[in-house]
């Protein structure tokens, strides 16, 4: 049957062979005819001419022959398709189930692969992205290290720097905006290789202190603040109360490495700067042709120790310097997610395919009567095969189109599902490449389930068996059982994955955040360009205004909001405890908070006293430390009353520890709290500050009022990120939630398909055995024993599937190691619940057909 179809298809698309054959045939005809004329006495020339004349227009004949071939082939196909579609429409339940299976499987696969195509497979939008590397250190690199690298490193054509995340107020546009500036080296735009859409980037001269008041705007900020006015290039803008000359506009797609920015300003390269003043988070460089991340890393292992010594870094600094390809840095974090999801959709697609194959098996067996009749009417095995095959093809094509439609819809909703900060979201689309992949996938799926009917043997055999009066149910039953078990096994794997993610979400929800996030509103306010005294006055007024509003319990300020993605750290020196030469001093994150902060966000004061308004600029300096700090730096001692200095946190002075407070997970829910210390805001009025407000009612409902009140104190101070703190936490769980949602959807589909599969096979089995069941009932079997008989069959295959599926699931879920939290990937609970759920569903699906079995009078069945 394959040969018949393929020959027609070949003829349809490559008429060359057909034409060559035709030419040979026509030449033979002319030769015979010429010979006949010669035999009747013509001269060879006359004979040939006569033969040609009688033959008619040779070109026309060739054309006609080709057409008739094509038309007939198309005609055949059309006839088959019409027949197949009529046959499918006669069985709407079968057709709908099969189409739904194919469409769901393909839609899931296409959607996930469009994400993978956009993020992992397409190169980053920079010229020669493989040359781009990021050089980083777990502490920091500064101007002097960049200068040293530029002098010493041979692996690069260009070395620059990038320090993202500087928040500055931009005044001029109303209302004032809080913008996220990236401080970059003069050669940064050259290194990235992206040209501005307007104006120019800044050159190396901008690194010279004094020349550095220039800015390049991002396209989004240009839209938002200046309505795409091209005249802004060459004009001055006011950033952090200082004038900057706008030199150019960068395109929206410019999203260097993994951190976007609203605008870029030069990092003034004064190597004599205090290192923290130019704390660069990232050095970006372009590799010289021939150099690789490996060779550059080898070179760095020579240079870094020299720098460690020269700049008097703490011991071990050099080993923390790493080189990473730009692609790895941008995409490394999403790769495990996408690998797991792509495996999940492959499993789902296989489940769907097995389901359709199973349905086809049942259908083909049920149709044996029809096929046998057709066969006895003279249809050949080949024709019957073509019939069944065309049905498969039709199912595949319609299912594929439906799947594609579903995928288009799903891709449109992706930006809402994917976690904030997911790389390259804007580039996700169903591209030509994805379409081609989808078509190939459809054909593969089609071919896989089209094999199923042929497993029953050829139609002719069916006909012979039927005529001989033997049953043909037996052979198909085992095949169906195997497909069913496969389906269940695949569903086990998907369910296990979903269960693990569910447990992860639960574990994340159970994590002690260290603060009470309910009824708390947070916002980020940036009163720029003020002196320390002016900031103190500003914040006092803000808190006074807010605190007395109805519905507000308390309000406080904090340097960096928990889960805000920002954290400052300092070296901690304990009074009277000298640091051994060469040993690294202890480090701790630090926060500057107003007195009510602990009470407002519910951080318990474990020992000592909370800050009060008396801890002001004139009072002796005090700090509070968290439990981790106390345990790490004062193990077995009472830290209260101890005196420490902590770099910028204490302004270089020594402060007295007055309190031990609870630990707060500041970075992420799945990262345990580190050492953290708190200083009273009045004693260290730093710039960027978050506001936390505890409300009596729904915090989001008060967002507008509170924003207005803060705005009224200083209209030039930009306010951003006004959010309920619960929402901040919800956002932080977006990634595991996305994986959970997608895995959950995939697993539910697989479960549904398995249930359909079990039901279909059991229901068919029951119909086959009605006679047997009738006899049993007639001989006195009660309904329960019949039910046991029927359910046992379905459950048997399900148990086989679960038995096979569990070890596969155990092996495959190991790929989820980076995604789960709080549990092992072999989590016992998940691996107990999943089989139970599956067997329960299989049991229910097997129960339904028992109604057919015990319905009606057994004598009716026996008489049939």
């Amino acid at each position, binding site marked *: 049957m394959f040969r018949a179809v393929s020959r027609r298809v070949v003829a349809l698309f490559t008429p060359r062979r057909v034409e060559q054959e*035709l030419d040979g*045939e026509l030449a033979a005809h002319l030769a015979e*005819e010429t010979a006949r004329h010669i035999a009747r006495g013509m001269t060879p020339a006359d004979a040939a001419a006569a033969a040609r004349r*009688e*033959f*008619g227009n040779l070109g026309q004949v060739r054309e006609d022959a080709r057409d*008739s071939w094509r038309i007939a082939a198309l005609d*055949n196909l059309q006839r088959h398709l019409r027949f197949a579609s009529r046959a499918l429409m006669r069985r709407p339940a079968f057709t709908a189930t099969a189409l739904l299976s194919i469409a769901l499987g393909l839609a899931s696969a296409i959607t996930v692969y469009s994400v993978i195509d956009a993020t992992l497979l397409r190169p980053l939008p920079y010229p020669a992205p493989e040359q781009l590397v990021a050089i980083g250190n777990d502490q920091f690199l500064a101007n002097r290290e960049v200068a040293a690298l530029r002098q010493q490193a041979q692996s690069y054509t260009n070395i620059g720097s990038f320090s993202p995340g500087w928040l500055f107020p931009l005044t001029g546009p109303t209302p004032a905006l809080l913008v996220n500036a990236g401080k970059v080296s003069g050669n940064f735009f050259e290194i990235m290789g992206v040209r501005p859409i307007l104006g120019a980037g800044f050159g190396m001269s901008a690194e010279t202190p004094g020349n550095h008041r220039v800015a390049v705007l991002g396209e989004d900020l240009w839209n938002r603040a200046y309505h795409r006015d091209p005249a802004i290039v060459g004009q001055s803008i006011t950033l952090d109360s200082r004038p900057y000359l706008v030199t150019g506009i960068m395109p929206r797609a410019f999203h260097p490495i993994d951190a976007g920015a609203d605008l870029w300003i030069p990092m003034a390269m004064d190597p004599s700067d205090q290192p923290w003043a130019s704390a660069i988070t990232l050095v970006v460089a372009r590799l010289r042709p021939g150099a690789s991340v490996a060779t550059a890393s080898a070179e760095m292992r020579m240079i870094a120790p020299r720098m460690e010594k020269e700049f008097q870094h703490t011991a071990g600094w050099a080993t923390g310097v790493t080189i990473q390809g730009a692609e790895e840095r941008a995409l490394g974090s999403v790769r495990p997610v996408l690998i797991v999801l792509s495996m999940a959709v492959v499993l789902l697609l296989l489940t769907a395919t097995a389901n359709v194959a199973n349905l086809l098996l049942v259908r083909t067996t049920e149709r044996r009567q029809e096929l046998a009749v057709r066969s006895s009417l003279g249809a050949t095995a080949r024709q019957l095969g073509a019939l069944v095959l065309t049905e498969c093809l039709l199912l595949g094509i319609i299912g594929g189109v439906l799947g594609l439609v579903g995928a288009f819809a799903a891709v449109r909703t992706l930006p809402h599902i994917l976690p904030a900060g997911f790389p390259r979201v804007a580039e996700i689309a169903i591209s030509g490449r994805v379409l081609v992949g989808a078509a190939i996938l459809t054909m593969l799926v089609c071919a896989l389930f089209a094999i199923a009917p042929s497993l029953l043997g050829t139609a002719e055999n069916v006909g012979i068996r039927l005529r001989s009066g033997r049953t043909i149910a037996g052979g198909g039953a085992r095949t169906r059982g195997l497909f069913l078990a496969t389906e269940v096994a695949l569903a086990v794997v998907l369910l296990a994955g979903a269960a693990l993610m569910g447990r992860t979400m639960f574990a994340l929800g159970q994590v002690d955040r260290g603060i009470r996030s309910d009824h708390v509103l947070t916002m980020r306010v940036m009163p720029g360009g003020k002196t320390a005294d002016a900031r103190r006055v500003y914040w006092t007024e803000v808190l006074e205004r807010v605190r007395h509003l109805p519905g507000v319990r308390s309000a406080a300020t904090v340097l960096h909001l928990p889960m805000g993605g920002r954290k400052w750290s300092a070296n901690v020196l304990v009074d009277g405890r000298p640091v051994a030469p060469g040993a690294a001093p202890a480090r701790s994150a630090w926060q500057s908070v107003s007195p009510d902060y602990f009470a407002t966000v519910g951080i318990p004061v474990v020992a000592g006293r909370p800050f009060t308004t008396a801890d002001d600029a004139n009072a002796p300096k005090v700090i509070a430390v968290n439990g981790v700090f106390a345990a790490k730096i004062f193990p077995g001692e009472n830290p209260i009353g101890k005196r420490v200095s902590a770099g910028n946190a204490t302004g270089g002075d020594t402060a007295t520890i007055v309190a031990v407070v609870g630990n707060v997970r500041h970075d992420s829910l799945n990262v345990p709290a580190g050492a953290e210390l708190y200083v009273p805001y009045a004693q260290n009025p730093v710039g960027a500050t978050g506001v936390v407000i505890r409300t009596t009612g729904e915090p989001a409902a008060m967002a507008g009022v509170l924003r207005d009140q803060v705005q009224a104190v200083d209209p030039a101070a930009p306010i951003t990120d006004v959010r309920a703190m619960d929402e901040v936490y919800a956002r932080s769980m977006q990634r595991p939630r996305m994986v959970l949602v997608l895995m959950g959807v995939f697993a539910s589909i697989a479960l549904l398909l398995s249930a359909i599969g079990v039901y279909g096979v059991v229901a068919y089995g029951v119909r086959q055995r009605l006679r047997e069941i009738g006899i049993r009932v007639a001989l006195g079997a009660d309904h329960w024993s019949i039910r046991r008989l029927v359910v046992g069959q379905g459950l048997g295959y399900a148990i086989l599937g679960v038995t096979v599926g569990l070890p596969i699931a155990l092996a495959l879920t190991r790929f989820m190691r980076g995604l789960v939290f709080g549990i092992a990937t072999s989590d016992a609970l998940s691996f107990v619940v999943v089989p139970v759920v599956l067997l329960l569903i299989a049991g229910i699906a097997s129960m339904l057909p028992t109604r057919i079995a015990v319905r009606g009078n057994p004598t009716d069945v026996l008489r049939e």
Partner: protein
Amino acid sequence: MGVRKTDMLQGTLDLVVLKLLQAGPDHGWALTRSIQAISRGVLDINYGTMYPALRRLEARGWVRAWWAVSENNRRVRYYELTASGRRQLTTERATWQRFSDALGRILGTN
């Protein structure tokens, strides 16, 4: 050119070819000669139209073809009726019979 020739009716060539092949496998040129001989030269077919017709029958699966050497020692393409070709012939013959009977009755009444 003593005999008046009649054009083949549209579509009848397929039927004729199927009928001729009922006797056994044959090749294109021989088939054209047979039509000439059996119809005593009345049915005038453009020899060229034989080949598109054969292709049409082949594509529909009514005949199958293979290359072989003819009685005149030339490589020619032989055609043979398939089972479905045989059935098609029966059907078409019956149709034709009904058609010509009806036509005969209409034209025969004066």
